[in-house]
C-alpha cells in the first residue's frame, strides 16, 4: 500500500505481534490508530500529547516508550495515561472521598491541610498482587511526549512506517526481558504476591491508620473552628450535638405508627358499619383477586398454549 493508511482522521500504524508459543496460532498484525490529542478541555500537556487507540492488551508504558523512542526513533515519551476505564480503583477513591465529605459538611471551608492529608491517605494502599495491569481489548491511551516536536515527529514516523510494508515493527521487540511476564509465570507470581510479607502489611496498616487519625483530627479541628467563626454577615451558626440521621427518623416514624396500631387494636368491629365495610372490602378484595387470577390464566394460556395433560 503506497498511500497513507488513515481512517477517520487517525493514522494507522501496523505492528507485528510477537510470535506465540502455542500451536496453530497464525502470525498476526495489530493496528494502532494515532492522532494528536484533542480533548474537550485541553490542558498544558495537550499540545505534546498523542491519542493512541486500540492498544494491545499487554501494553505497558515501557512498550510505548520503546515504540516511539527506539523503534520509530522519533521522540521521547514523558508519560502514558491509560484509558480511564471505570475501574474499581477509581471508584474506590471516589467512595473514600465522599465518605470524608460526610464528616465535614461544607467542602468550601476545608482547610488545605485536611485535603492534603486525604490525598496522602489515598496513596497508602495494600501491596499490589499483579506484575502488570492488562488493558481491555480495543482500549486507548494518551501518550505525553517531552515536547511538541517529538510528538509531531512521532506521528510522521508512524505515517511513514505505515506506508512501508506491513509488519516492520515488532511489538515489544528488544525489551522482552524488561516487560512484566505473561503466561504461566504471571499467574504463579500473582499466587505468591497474594500473600505479602507480614511486616509489609503491618507497615501499610500502621501508615494508613496514622494518616487516617491525622485526617480525622484535622477535620475535627476544622469543625470546631467553624462553630466559632462568624460568616459573611457576621453570624455564628449555633449547632447542638450530632443531628439525627434520616435512618433514625424513619425508625422513629415507624415506631409511632406501630404504637397507634396497638392502640386501636380490638376496636375494629365496634360499630356495625365497620364490620359491614370490612365485609365489603373483603369481597372486593376477593373480586380483585379473582380478576387477577383470570388475567394470570390468560397470560398462562398465551405462553404455554392450551391447558392439556402432557
Amino acid at each position, binding site marked *: 500500500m503506497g498511500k497513507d493508511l488513515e481512517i477517520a482522521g487517525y493514522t494507522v500504524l501496523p505492528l507485528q505481534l510477537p510470535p506465540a508459543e502455542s500451536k496453530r496460532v497464525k502470525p498476526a498484525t495489530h493496528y494502532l490508530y494515532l492522532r494528536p490529542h484533542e480533548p474537550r478541555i485541553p490542558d498544558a500537556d495537550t499540545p505534546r500529547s498523542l491519542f493512541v487507540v486500540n492498544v494491545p492488551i499487554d501494553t505497558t508504558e515501557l512498550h510505548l516508550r520503546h515504540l516511539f523512542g527506539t523503534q520509530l526513533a522519533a521522540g521521547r515519551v514523558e508519560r502514558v495515561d491509560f484509558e480511564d476505564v471505570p475501574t474499581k480503583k477509581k471508584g*474506590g477513591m471516589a467512595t473514600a472521598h465522599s465518605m470524608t465529605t460526610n464528616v465535614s459538611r461544607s467542602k468550601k471551608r476545608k482547610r488545605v491541610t485536611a485535603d492534603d492529608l486525604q490525598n496522602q491517605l489515598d496513596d497508602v494502599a495494600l501491596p499490589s498482587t499483579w506484575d502488570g495491569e492488562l488493558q481491555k481489548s480495543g482500549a486507548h491511551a494518551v501518550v505525553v511526549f517531552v515536547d511538541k516536536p517529538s510528538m509531531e515527529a512521532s506521528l510522521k514516523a508512524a505515517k511513514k512506517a505505515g506506508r512501508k510494508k506491513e509488519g516492520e515493527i515488532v511489538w515489544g521487540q528488544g525489551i522482552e526481558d524488561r516487560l512484566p511476564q505473561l503466561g*504461566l509465570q504471571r499467574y504463579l507470581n500473582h499466587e505468591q504476591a497474594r500473600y*505479602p510479607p507480614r511486616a509489609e502489611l503491618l507497615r501499610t496498616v500502621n501508615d494508613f*491508620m496514622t494518616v487516617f487519625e491525622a485526617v480525622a483530627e484535622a477535620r475535627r479541628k476544622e469543625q470546631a473552628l467553624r462553630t466559632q467563626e462568624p460568616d459573611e454577615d457576621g453570624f455564628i451558626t449555633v449547632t447542638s450535638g450530632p443531628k439525627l440521621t434520616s435512618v433514625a427518623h424513619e425508625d422513629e416514624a415507624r415506631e409511632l405508627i406501630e404504637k397507634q396500631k396497638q392502640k386501636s387494636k380490638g376496636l375494629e368491629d365496634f360499630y356495625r358499619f365497620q364490620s359491614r365495610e370490612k365485609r365489603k372490602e373483603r369481597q372486593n378484595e376477593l373480586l380483585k383477586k379473582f380478576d387477577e387470577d383470570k388475567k394470570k390464566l390468560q397470560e398462562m394460556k398465551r405462553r404455554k398454549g392450551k391447558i392439556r395433560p402432557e
Partner: protein
Amino acid sequence: MLTHKAKRRKLSPSPQIAQKAEQSNESKLNNYSKIARNEPSSMDGLARRKNIDRSAELALASGVYKSNLFKLQLDELLTESRPNYGKHVSKLQDILHKLKEVIEQIPERPPKPAIEAEKEIRNTHGIVVPYPEPLPGKDTKYTVSYNKPTNVNVVGSFVLRTGVRASEPYTVDLAVTMPNTVFQEKDYVNHRFFHKRAYYIACLASGIKEAGDINFDIKFAQQDGDSLRPLILLNPTDSTKSGSQSVRYQIRIFTAIEDKLFPIGRTLPMKNNVRQGSPDQSESCAPTPFYNAALRSEATVAPFHKLLYSTAQMCDSFRDACILGRIWLRQRGFGSSFQQGGFGGFEWTILMALLFEGGGFNGKPILLKSYSSYQLFKATIQFLAGKNLLNPLLLFASDIPSPTGTPTLYDGKRGLNILYKMSPWSYSLLRYEADIALRMLNESRDDNFDKVFIYKVNEPMLRFDRLITLPVSESGTILRTIRNHNVIYEVLKKALGDRAELIFLFSNGAEPWSVGKKFSHKSTSATIQIGLNLHPENAMRVVDHGPFAEQKDEAAAFRSFWGEKAELRRFRDGTIRESLVWSDQLPSPSIVYQLLVYILHRHFNYAEDEISYIGDEFDEKLRNSEDGIPLYSSPAFQLVTDAFNSLERSFQSLEEVPLTVRQLALASPLGRYSALRVQSSGLIRDPVDIVLQFESSSRWPDDLVAIQMTKVAFLIKIGDSLVSSGAASSCKVGLENESSRTLNNAFLDISHTSGVIFRMRIHHDREQLLLERQLKEKETSLRAKQEAAYNLSAYKRLFIQSPRLTQAIRTLCTRFPSLSPTIRLVKHWFACHLFTGYVNEEVIELVVAKVFTQPYPWDTPSSVMVGFLRTLHFLARWDWQQDPLIVDLGGELNQDTLEAIHTRFSGWRRIDPAMNTVALFVASDIDPDGVTWTQHEMPPKVVAARMSMLAKGAVKLVQANGLALDVSDLFQTSLAPYDFIVKLRTEHLHDRSTSLLKYKNLNGLDSQGQTANLKVVGPFVRDLQACFGPNVLFFHGDENCDMLAGVWNPQTAKPKSWSLKLTYSSSPSTGGPTKKDDEVTINRDAIFNEISRLGSGLVDSIEVFGTK
C-alpha cells in the same frame, strides 16, 4: 357458600334429570341417540351456568375449590379434555347402527365340538378362533354354537360421556349380550365358558368380515390384557376420511352375559373353578379369584352401565370428576389391564359410583351429590390413600371371604371385586401416588395444579431409583402370568426387605393380532420390568441379620431362601444369628445389585447377563469422576466438620484479640457437603471459607477503607495468636479484590493442625450500614452509587447469604441422604458442559435442593439417579424468563414471603427487561432477594438459554433410550456450537507448576499440582474475560477440563464504521473500493495471538471452527 350453591341448583335443574335409566332391556343404541338429541339443551344449561352472577361464581371459587386460579385452570382443563361428542355422535351413529344390523343378521350355528367348529370357521371364513389356553382338546365333550345375541348395546365412556380427549384414537365400546341358549349350567368351570365365548367372538368377527360394506380393519385383541377374554377391535380403514381433521376412533366389540346365567355364589373370590382332576371334585382346591372375576365381569356389563348412568344423572359433576380421575391415572401410567396396574378409567368411574352409596364409616357414603367435581376427585383420592383395601371392604354384602395380600373392594350387588385385576404391587403404587396427590392438594402454599394433572409422571427413569428388566418365557395365559409375576414379586420383596420401599412390576400387554392368525405369545411380553424405590440408608446396609440360631424353623427357612449366602455368625453383642454379608468394597457393584443378581439366580436361574439393570451408573459416575465419596457422612467431610469445631473452640479461648468473638460460621461448599471434589492425595484440597463476626464495638472506624485496614490488622493479630496457642500450624494473610479499596480486601489462611486449611474473613455489620447510607445520600455521584450497590451485594453474598446457605444445605443433607451426592453429580454435569465460570455453585445447590424439598409430583428422591434426572427435568421445564425459582430451604416459606419474592422478581424484570444483569432469579425463604447468586450475568442470558437447551436434550435422551441409556452420554458436551477451542496444556502443567512452586520455596500450603492448576487457570480465564469482555464468551469446566471454548459475540462479525466505542481489537477493512473507507473489522488473529501470549505456557493450541 354451600347454601348459595344449593339455591342455584334448585333454580336451574339439570336438563337431564327427568331421564331415567329404564331402558335396560331395550337396546341402548336408542338410549344413546336420545342423549344425542339432548345435546343442545345441555349446551344451553352450560351457557346459563356461565352467565350466573359473578359473586356466586366467586363464592364458588373461593370455597369449594382449592383456589381461584386452581379452579380456573381446572375449568379450562375440563373444557379442553371433553371430547367433542356432537362430532363423534354424528359420525358414528350410522356406523354403529349398521354394525348392529350386521350383528343381528349373523346366521345361527348349530352346536359342534370345539375343534370341529374351529376347523369349519377357519376353512369357510379364514378366521382362527381365539381360544384361550389351555386350548380345547380332542376329548372335549362340550359343544360350541352361535345364536342371535339378546342385545347389542353401546356402553362405556362414550355413552356416559366420561371419556377424555387423548392423542390415541377414541374407543367406543359395543357390548353384545350372548343368549343363554349357548351355555350350559356348568360352563363356569375349566375355561368352558371362555372357549364358548371365544367361538362366539369368532362368529361375530366372521359376520362383520363378510358384510362387505363396512370399511374396517378387523383384529382380535385382549380385553384389558386378559387372555381369557379376546375381543374384536375395529379400526376404520377408509383413508379418504381419516385425515387430520376427522375424528379418530376405534370400536371394541366384546361380549356380555345375562346377570342370572351363572349364580353369583359360584364366582366368589375364594371359589375354585379350574380343576385339575375331574370336574366334580370337592372345592378344596386353591381358589381362582382372577378367573372367577373375569367370568363374573361378563355378567356385570349391563348392571355397571346402569349404575354409572344413574349416578351421572344424579350428580352433575360426576362426569367431570371422572375426566379428572382418568387424567390423573393416565398421567401416572395406570390402565385397566393387569399389566398396567389393573386400575384404569373404568375402575375409577365404578369406584366413584360406589362411593356415592357407601364405603365410609358405618357404611355411610363418602361422596355426596352436591359435591363439585374437584371435591369428588379429592374425596376419591383421599379414599384411595386412606383406606387400606388389603383388608377387604365389602359393600352391600357380608361374610364374603377373599384372598389375602390383594386389594378387595367387593360390590355385593354386582358380585364383583372391582379391584380384581390389581396386584399387591400395583395397589401399593396406586396408594403411594394417591398419597402424594393428596399431599399436593392439601398444600396451601402452592396450587400444584400442573403437578396433579399436567405433568407426565410415569417416565420410569424419573420415577424409580433402580430399574431392572428380566426376560420372561411368556406363558400366554393371564393366569400363569399373574402367578409368575407374583412369585418374582414375593421373592424380591422378601429378599430386599426394608431396603426397598416400593417394588413395582410392569410389562407390556399383548398387541392386537389379525383374525386370520393364531395368537402368538412369543412376540409379546418378552420382558418384565421392575422398578424399585430404595430406602437410601437401608439400601446400603452391609450385613443383614436373620433369625437367631435357636429359632430352628425360621433359621431353616432363612437358609433355604438364601442358600449358601446365609452364614451363621456370632455378633458383638454375643448373639448368634443367621446373617448375610455383602461386599461394599470397590470395585464390587452396589449391594442392591449383588443381592438382586444373587437372588434372581438362586430362585429363577437368571444369569447375570440376562438381567439389565440401571441406576447405579450415576453413583459410579460420581465415584469415578470424583474422589469416591458417595455420602455426606464420608470421612472427608467429617474431617472438615471436626476441624471446624476444634477451631471454633480455640477461638473461644483466644486471648490476645481485643474483641470477643460472637460467631464463627462455615461458608463453603466443603462445609455443606456439596463440594464436587474434596480431597487430593489425602488432604482437603481447597481452603474452607469461614466467616468470623465480633461482638459489636464502637472502636471500629466509621470509614469503609479504614475498616478494611483494621481487618488486616485483626487478621494478623488473630493469626499470630492462633499459631502461638497451637491451634494452627501456620497462618498467613492474603489479599483479594485488589481493584477496590472498599470491598473485602484481606483474608487469613489458617492451616489447622488437622491439615484442613481455613480461609477466614471478618464480617463487620457496620459496613452494610455505611454502604446503605451511601446509597441513600443525595450528593453521592452515580458511579459511586453503583460501586456502593455492587459492594453491598458482594457484602451480603459473602457475609450473610453464604453462611446461611451453608447452614441450610447442611441441615438438608443430613435430612436427605441422597441430596449431597446429587448436588455433586449435578455440579459435575455443569462442569462437563463448561458452565463453571458462569453458574455459581450455589445456584446449582439451590436447584437441587428444590427438587428435594418440593419434589411434587413425585416423592422426595431417594437415589442419585432420580435426583439427578429430576433436576435436569426441572431445568428443562423451567421458563426462567417468566418464572422465578423459589426454593423452600427451611420450611418457612409462607404466602407473604412468596408474594414478596414475586414482587421483587417482577421488579427486576421491569428495570432490566432485556435481562442484561439478571437472567435467572433464584430466591429462597432465607434469601428473598433472589439475585444474590445470579446478579451480574451469572449466568448471562445466552448461557442460561444454553443450559435450558442442554437439559432439554438430556431429558429427551433419557426418555428415548430408557434403560438402554448410556449414562456417560449425558456428560459429553458437543463442541460444535463454539467458534474456537483453546486447548490447555494440563499434563505437564501439573508437574511444572508444582516444581516451580517448590523452587520458589513457598510454604507447603499449595504445593498440590491440581490446586495450582486451578489457581492458574482460574485467574487466566478471569483475565481473558476482563480483556475481551462482551465480545467473546469463554466457557470452561473445572480443573479436570483441559480446554476453553469461545464464542464470538455475533455483533462483532460485521465490519463497523470506525469509532472510539469499539471494544475490540480491529483492523482496517481491506475489502477494496466497494467498502466504505472508515470501516474496520475485528482482528481475530491478533486476538488469538494475545490470548496465546497471555497464556503462554498454558495454552497448547487454538483451534478455530468454521470461517464466519
